[in-house]
């Protein structure tokens, strides 16, 4: 039970507990704050996987941008009455059944997955950002996804501005 395993168990417990709170807590603002705790827990898991760049990007991007955007959205659509109404729709039992079933299936698949006993973690230096940068830019590597990602982002930007911007003219 060395230090890494203790940290892993702690981080995994915090992540899963706060994820459960995200889906079950009544008030939307609290759900958003629990989501931030989940994202920080996942960042700790990335550190344990020797992917330091992704841990920092996770905190910078998810906690710094997406969580704040969700909090803005929660603020923009606040209604006093909807907080008291039941937060789960009628078919929530079916939803619980489906996800529990999926969990059992995944556990079975993992049990006889050959690689799951692999423990040898190779040298940590291979996964740093410079190697990723090279992979992203050399044409034989992943240059195409690099450019497609920017087109995807601009499309999302233009689409959302077109939708969300209050046009001065007739709205309803």
């Amino acid at each position, binding site marked *: 039970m060395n230090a890494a395993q203790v940290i892993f168990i702690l981080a995994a417990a915090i992540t899963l507990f706060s994820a459960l709170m995200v889906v079950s807590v009544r008030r939307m603002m609290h759900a958003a*704050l629990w989501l931030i705790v989940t994202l920080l827990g996942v960042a700790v898991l990335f550190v344990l996987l020797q992917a330091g760049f992704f841990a920092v990007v996770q905190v910078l991007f998810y906690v710094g941008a997406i969580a704040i955007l969700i909090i803005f959205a929660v603020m923009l659509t606040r209604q006093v009455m909807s907080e008291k109404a039941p937060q789960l729709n009628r078919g929530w039992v079916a939803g619980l059944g489906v996800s529990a079933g999926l969990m059992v299936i995944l556990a079975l698949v993992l049990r006889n997955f050959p690689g799951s006993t692999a423990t040898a973690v190779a040298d940590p230096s291979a996964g740093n950002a410079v190697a990723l940068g090279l992979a992203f830019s050399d044409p034989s590597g992943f240059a195409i996804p690099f450019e497609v990602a920017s087109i995807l982002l601009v499309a999302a930007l233009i689409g959302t501005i077109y939708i969300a911007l209050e046009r001065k003219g007739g709205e309803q």
Partner: protein
Amino acid sequence: MDFWTDPYLFLVNWLQELLVGWGVPAATSAFLLMLTGAFILAMGAMLFVLGLIWFERKIAGRFQDRFGPNRIGPWGIIQPLADMLKIFTKEHITPDGVDLVPYNLGPVLSVAAVLAVWAVLPFTLSLVGADLDVSVLYVVAIGGLGEIAVVLSGWGSNNKYALLAAFRSVAQLLSYEVPLVIALLVPVMLSGSLSLNDIVRGQTLPYVILAPVAAFVFFLTSIAEVGRSPFDLTEAESELVAGFNIEYSGLKFGMFYVADFLHAFTISLLFAVLFLGGWQGPYAVQYPMLGLLWFFLKAGVVYFIGVWMRVSFPRFRIDQMMAISWKLLTPLAIAAVILTALIAKLIPTDGILRTGSLLAANLLLAGCAMLALILNRKKKILKEFPLSAASGFSVKDVTGKTQRSAQ
């Protein structure tokens, strides 16, 4: 490596041998040393703020032609300590309907978000907290946590004005983080690594000479990120009462105050690391402790300029502030990145030619930005006072129609 050349490393090794001598296994002794080192650094930063408060109040006094604190102790040195003791014994008033966890977590997280930056700052050749290979991004990510602290305290205090002020402040922080992050690309490109330590080692020639535009953008955006001087709309007295920290009293309010000062000095440390060459200086390699002196001197100069701006500039309106970030600083930062990327690749060999062309390109870019500003200003003036109505002045009445005055 005896005591005189590098006291820090000598001390660490001596302690290490001492602990191992007592039979403490190597791993735990390294852990203990790390723990004490981190504790000393954190306590040092918190106590450093007291000196900072005194330094700023004295300088602000001098700018406004008055003495600043001089009652307690010689030149008022003990004044911040007296303030601290007073605020330590103040009552904590918690208003009703407060959301306890976010309310109390807000001030703690805002100080922790600033303190955590000190973990990766390269103080000297050997004295580095954590030699992280992604420390530039770590610093920006910790800035993101500061925004979460603002949201927590704004939401937790269950006060309409605090909530509104918190979101205006977050909107400002967000729109100023974009040019900050883009301007950070330039030092990373010039030094070829994401680690602050390598950036400082690569700066035999400070990057402020190679990329002055990026340095200017970084300086302005980091001051806006702290929420001080011209960009301090969020807790301006004339605006929304006292911003998001209305409902805090006693030391919790004191914590926001400490976070504000510590953050102001941390950005000057960062500016010194990224653009002024950190501990680089004469004899800094042979005697690393001397590097610490250069580092804090450079940061002090940048901090002085920050205080200078804070005292002399009027406050920006919120739409002006947003316009500056999106319409001036972001295009400027993007242009600086593209310019540096192209030129540093076309002239790969280090030397006068490369620095000269980089400097020229940056100055050219700054000139174009100035020109664009002037033309835009002229266009705006012309729109309001069209030349055609030179004979009589045109007055817009309530309905917006232009009435021509009598000749």
